[in-house]
């Protein structure tokens, strides 16, 4: 699948039997709806703000167009509710969520949150340790 931002081919990363698509160039992450469901199911957490963001109402995305890597439809913008809400991109057909490098950092570093958000943060934080550790991504 193509990265919605820089249009280079993403690679698939798998940890704990969950897959995410990752762009090696711009360091963003595509969280597929099916994988998100599996992750939440496996963690035993109830559906929370991230599923809510995927299903909820979006705002039009300002700036350059970003297209859903699954269906090519223009993505919109949604809030992941929590102590510090994080804005992420979302396929309006609910194929998944796109987190660019900054959004990913803000989500992982956000304090606390619902059990579902914690499960997603834990996985993404562990999976992308080294890239997030680099000085330029701070």
């Amino acid at each position, binding site marked *: 699948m193509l990265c919605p931002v820089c249009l280079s*081919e993403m690679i698939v990363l798998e*940890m704990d039997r969950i897959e995410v698509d990752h762009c090696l160039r711009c360091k963003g992450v595509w969280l597929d709806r099916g994988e998100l469901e599996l992750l939440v199911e*496996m963690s035993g957490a109830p559906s929370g703000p991230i599923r809510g963001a995927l299903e909820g109402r979006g705002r039009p995305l300002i700036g350059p167009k970003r297209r859903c890597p699954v269906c090519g439809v223009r993505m919109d913008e949604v809030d992941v509710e929590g102590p510090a809400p994080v804005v992420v991109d979302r396929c309006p057909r609910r194929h998944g969520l796109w987190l660019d490098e900054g959004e990913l950092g803000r989500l992982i570093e956000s304090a606390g949150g619902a059990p579902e958000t914690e499960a997603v943060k834990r996985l993404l934080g562990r*999976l992308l340790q*080294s890239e997030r550790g680099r000085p330029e991504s701070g």
Partner: protein
Amino acid sequence: MWEQIRSNRRKSAILLVLMAVLLLALGSSLGAAATGAPEGAIAGAALAAAVWLILTLVAYAGGDNIMLATAGARRIEKRDLPKLFNIVEEMTIASGLPVMPEVYLIESNVPNAFAVGSPKRSAVAVTTGLLARLNRDELQGVIAHEIGHIRNQDTRFIVLAGVMVAAIVLIADLFWRSMAYGRFRGGRGRGGGQAQAILMLVALVLVILSPILARLLYFACSRKREYLADASAARFTRYPEGLASALEKIDKAVLSERPDVNRVIAPMYIVNPLAARGGISGLFSTHPPTAERIRILRAMGKSASFAQYEEAYRTVSGKSGLIGASALADSGETPVREAAAETEPVAAARKREAMDVLYRKSGYRIAQCTCGTRMKVPPTHPDPAIPCPTCGRSVSVG
């Protein structure tokens, strides 16, 4: 034996003849209306027959492959998914099918399955979502249902009847389009106005009614075939609960997922993904309500025979006469077996297994970093080594 299949075949033949009559009537009335002459009727009928013939030839030459390709199905081998193949082999033997169907895998979160072909050459296609969500008994139920369709010649009938419906719809559609371009309004100057006006009226009525009628005939037959495939599945597996539980899971998932399937293929799936959402049931649905199919399977109790399914069908739906008398008498004792005892891998593991097959088929290179992260690299990616995003080590993906 297999009386219900023979009776089905007879009914199917009658149905196809009815559809053919409808098709020819539509063609000839349009021909007559367009030209205002009796020769027009013959030409129209010939044209309708030609449309049908061409569509049928296309469907026979490549229909199965077209359908599999439209669904995005990839053919897989035994070494790819031995467990799935094992079930298909088992059910081929249980059903007495002469040749084992080819097995196809579709990448989709929506759990579903369909079959194409004739008993001598057939294929079953399942989605990755189906493999992820179902345990062995449930998967066996679904495969048995699909093989039931092949065994009962439903897949062949659906193509034949579907082509007939398509021809009728196409001709009716051609009429509306040519109306828009004025083809049918030009005859007035040639005289015989009244006769042509009547012909025109008949043609109009047929144009409006025949697509609806053709679909009704098609749907009525296909609903009954679903029940028969369920009855076959119960008998082949001797475990009605497997299919019942699978249908329950599929129905639930189909409702929550957004349908991403083609409208033409939708009725071929074990649960129609488009109809399940709208709650349309009745004359225009290809499938009986899933809840009712589940209730019938669960009402079967200790026996998995056709007679038992017929009785459960009668209790639940209040109707009868689903299965032919000699098949009922012939089927004998078929006690329900115990649930398979096995340690089931979790849904995520089953999904990874199925998805990895598709990745390999698409030319992805799969590499494991020593830190535990697995990487799946698309064939278009140029680098022979990739820095692991988890630990930073360079991982060779050549």
